[in-house]
């Protein structure tokens, strides 16, 4: 780009240099104080120095709202752009990204994030710290699991996850009450009940702790060694709403199928206090019928119905 760009066109608001073969966007852009949209798709950007140093602090860094770097050669999200606190829309689709940096949370104003068509294998929980994110596109990647923290994205309206390597979703996904669109096709979602085979049976200490908690056995700090008092305070309640049980370290991951709006059955991962748990587990019954195949109405199903257009297609 010509060095005199910001002197000749100081009022420039939109610049499209897509498909021009550029290998770097240079410092000549930094002094454009009104440039809010920069489109640089289908170029040869991706090497070190693809974006100008000091981008976040420059006039351009404060004005930029839309940045499209799709169809380039970025192997990582360029750190230079993480300083763009006013950026509302970022596209890095069709690059060579293998991951998302936790510092993505610095893009405080981000509403639209397109990362489809890369080689991303996992999502950092810090992504959930973007308060204004309403559209997240992660399709056509290699993602194996979704961190439950993503349910904190309260503004999320559209989530695109199709063509990844997901076998299940975290139960917390049902908390995204404003989600209007969810695409999940092309994932190897489990279709049958799956029991986690690495469940470790609870220790005697755990069993004793559970009994004390569920039977409300009274105790005072003077009755027990300090480490056990501390241990008892860490009891987690079994998330099964029909179960009053607690667990400490020993819990079982279970896939539970939830009917989405009466249309599709989604496998959701959650934790239970024991493999027998799905109904009140006060009775240590031996019957381990496949609980999840026939799900009756419960909190999860009600929450699922709140979500609207689910594009499982």
């Amino acid at each position: 780009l010509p060095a005199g760009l910001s002197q000749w066109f100081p009022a420039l608001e939109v610049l499209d240099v897509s498909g021009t073969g550029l290998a770097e966007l240079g410092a000549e852009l930094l002094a454009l104080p009104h440039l809010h949209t920069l489109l640089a798709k289908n170029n040869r950007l991706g090497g070190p120095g693809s974006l100008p140093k000091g981008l976040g602090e420059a006039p351009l860094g404060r004005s930029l709202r839309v940045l499209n770097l799709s169809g380039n050669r970025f192997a990582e999200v360029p750190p230079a752009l993480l300083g763009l606190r006013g950026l509302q829309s970022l596209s890095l689709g069709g690059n060579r990204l293998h991951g998302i940096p936790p510092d993505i949370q610095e893009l405080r104003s981000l509403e639209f994030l397109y990362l489809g068509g890369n080689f991303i294998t996992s999502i950092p929980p810090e992504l959930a710290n973007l308060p204004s994110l309403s559209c997240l596109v992660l399709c056509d990647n290699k993602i194996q699991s979704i961190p439950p923290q993503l349910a904190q994205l309260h503004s999320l309206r559209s989530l695109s996850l199709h063509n990844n390597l997901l076998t299940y979703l975290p139960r917390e996904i049902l908390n995204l009450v404003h989600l209007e669109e969810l695409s999940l096709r092309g994932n190897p979602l489990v279709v049958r009940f799956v029991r986690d085979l690495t469940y470790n049976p609870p220790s005697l200490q755990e069993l004793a702790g559970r009994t004390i908690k569920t039977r409300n056995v009274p105790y005072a700090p003077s009755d027990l060694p300090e480490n056990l008092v501390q241990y008892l305070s860490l009891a987690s309640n079994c998330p099964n709403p029909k179960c009053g049980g607690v667990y400490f370290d020993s819990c079982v991951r279970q896939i539970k199928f939830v009917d989405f709006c009466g249309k599709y059955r989604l496998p959701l991962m959650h934790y239970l206090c024991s493999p027998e748990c799905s109904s009140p587990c006060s009775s240590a019954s031996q019957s381990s019928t496949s609980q999840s195949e026939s799900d009756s109405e419960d909190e999860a199903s009600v929450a699922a119905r709140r979500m609207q257009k689910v594009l499982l297609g």
Partner: protein
Amino acid sequence: FRYTRNLVDNGNGKFNLMILCWAEGHGSSIHDHTDSHCFMKILQGNLKETLFEWPEKKGNGEMSKKSERVLRENQCAYINDSIGLHRVENISHTESAVSLHLYSPPFDSCNTFDQRTGHKHKVKMTFYSQFGERTLC
């Protein structure tokens, strides 16, 4: 956030002519065409069309793909229920796509199919805009 359907002409009730706008990564579900003729022409970009066989009556398995192709700018395609079902997608992560669709007779509902099970579900189809005016509902 998903492809938009924009009605252009309703041919005195004989057909629906509409323009569909597909942003990067947008795709449709697998759907049928409610006994109507469906013509499609690509006005901009590319769209991938994947044809599927109708699922078995009692079928409970993955639907079987018949064929797939990428339709380029100005190419046309035709489908009706006797040919099969299809999914249309903009698989580009950098370019949006625009297509022109002609349905005769017009229809406002169709079935969408779950690729993993073949189960169908009737859906009402809505317009993002009609004759240039945004449709709110």
